[in-house]
């Protein structure tokens, strides 16, 4: 039915089509729909945290490690703070950090990838080896190195993660740009005098949209995991601001008395990351016709 509506419109713009296909695929594919629901729920929780959180996430009470059900729906942590409110604000921290990081890294990576893959020459000679070196650092270690140098805290965390995520975007875009530049239609575009900017926006970027979208979604999943890891190590977002990772590390210290402070944030991380992974898989299947049907879902 969606298809009929789309085709009934007069000349739908060409660039919309991947978006339409994607939406259709998400609705049709149950797994993708689950992913979408998880991501939307977590995003709503993050955005609406100040409105829906029953308590101030940093307000302490004497109900230390209270089990779920009483005053606090999901129980309380070792300082008597409401776990539900902390989890909601944790979603805010985790999702905003990841979104800033992946968007920032995506933009920088795409620009670097275009410079290297479209123009080649000395730009490629500088950018690509630099990316290779960054790539040759294990992800978490690179983030640790930056945090070690700059000290813990939200801004440094974001900086560290942006550096970590740039190379994968740059690599993908460079690869796409290098293949597209060789296509006859780019040649003819050049022949009729299109500027490099036009060529990039008309031919190169549209072709790179699918891999970028997949990379974007899976990077979000990964960024949430790394943010949580650094938070767990005490190197991420600093208390009292709630983050899932630091909630887990204080929860672990009290797990012999109550498991809830370790369960709630862990489940939140798992569901959010799972949501982005499912979404990423579906986007890959929907946007990359080469892979369609092969995954055999």
């Amino acid at each position: 039915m969606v298809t009929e509506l789309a085709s009934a419109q007069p000349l739908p713009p060409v660039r919309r089509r991947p978006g339409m296909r994607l939406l259709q695929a998400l609705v049709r594919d149950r797994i993708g729909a689950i992913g979408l629901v998880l991501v939307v729920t977590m995003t709503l929780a993050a955005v609406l945290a100040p409105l829906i959180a029953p308590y101030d996430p940093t307000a302490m009470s004497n109900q230390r490690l209270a089990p779920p059900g009483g005053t606090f729906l999901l129980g309380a942590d070792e300082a008597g703070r409401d776990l539900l409110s902390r989890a909601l604000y944790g979603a805010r921290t985790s999702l905003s950090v990841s979104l800033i990081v992946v968007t920032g890294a995506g933009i920088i990576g795409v620009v670097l990838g275009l410079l290297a893959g479209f123009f080649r020459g000395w730009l490629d000679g500088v950018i690509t080896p630099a990316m290779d070196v960054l790539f040759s650092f294990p992800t978490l270690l690179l983030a640790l190195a930056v945090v070690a140098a700059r000290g813990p805290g939200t801004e440094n965390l974001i900086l560290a993660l942006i550096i970590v995520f740039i190379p994968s975007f740059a690599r993908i875009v460079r690869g796409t740009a290098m293949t597209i530049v060789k296509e006859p239609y780019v040649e003819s575009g050049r022949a009729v005098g299109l500027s490099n900017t036009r060529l990039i926006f008309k031919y190169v970027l549209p072709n790179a949209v699918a891999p970028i979208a997949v990379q974007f979604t899976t990077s979000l999943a990964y960024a949430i995991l790394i943010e949580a890891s650094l938070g767990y190590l005490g190197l991420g977002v600093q208390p009292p601001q709630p983050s899932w990772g630091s909630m887990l590390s204080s929860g672990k210290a009290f797990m012999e008395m109550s498991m809830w402070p370790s369960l709630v944030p862990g489940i939140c991380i798992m569901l959010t990351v799972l949501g982005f992974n499912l979404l990423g898989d579906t986007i890959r299947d929907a946007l990359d016709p080469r892979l369609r049907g092969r995954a055999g879902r």
Partner: protein
Amino acid sequence: MARIILTRLLAVVPVLLGISVISFFVIRMIPGDVISSIMGQDFSDPKLEAEMRAYFGLDMPIHEQFLSWFGRLLHGDLGTSMRSGQPVLDEILERLPATMLLAVSALVVSVLISIPFGVLSATRRNGLLDAGSRLASLIGLSVPNFWLGILLVYLFSVTLGWLPSQGAGNGEGGLTQLKYLILPAVTLGASLAAISMRMTRSSMLEVLNQDYVRTARAKGLSERVVVARHALRNSLIPVITVLGIQAGALLGGTVVVEQVFSWPGLGTMVIRGITQRDYPVVQGTLLFLAFFYVVVNLLVDIIYVYLDPRLRSGH
């Protein structure tokens, strides 16, 4: 073959150089000054400050600092811990076996889970086992490994009391020491298994569609022989690459998992270095781990060429 190995070796040189440069400058990125952050309140004593500066070689121009640091690096000198006064390399070598033991055990756990399940998943595609193992691997990809560690500690140490939750049990001898290894190795191995199971499944599916597999079936070989002899061997090539890529995830993962289990390896050493602001320790350990990672990848690359003769003729 020899030429390929040589090209790969040469390609690694700039990467190692780049890693060294980054590791050197990471410390120069510290806001303010290393000395002031170590000395804290004692900063007011200018004589002591100048002494410290000279001791760490910070009174030289930056390029000279780099050259002297790099020269010492080439001699295997990673500097001295600002806290203990011990050479960083000594502590690394002392802790390396623990990390290696954990990493290798995790890899074994991961292979034991991922290859059988990946193969079964592909050969019984869309069956119940396929659905189950794919779901498990998706969840495995989404669970932070330190949380899995916490859950395992809760179940096997706190609730059941079967396994120890902290340390490596050094000095407790053989079998008891093995008990300490189980939880960290399973924690780290399970998250790796999630990735390599997906990879095994998809490369197995790809191979099962190849002409030579059809030929093998057509000449009447049993499905078991087709899978084991013809398909599995070829599908393992990309899996080996993934295991190589996982060396990175493994090294990163050890840092977090070691912290969960207070495992006396390089991971806990880095984190201690970071929290104590012991910069030579951080720099040395990260450098060591990054070098290690590059070397592992180089080895994987070479094994890859060795296993897939098609790669030998090209480049």
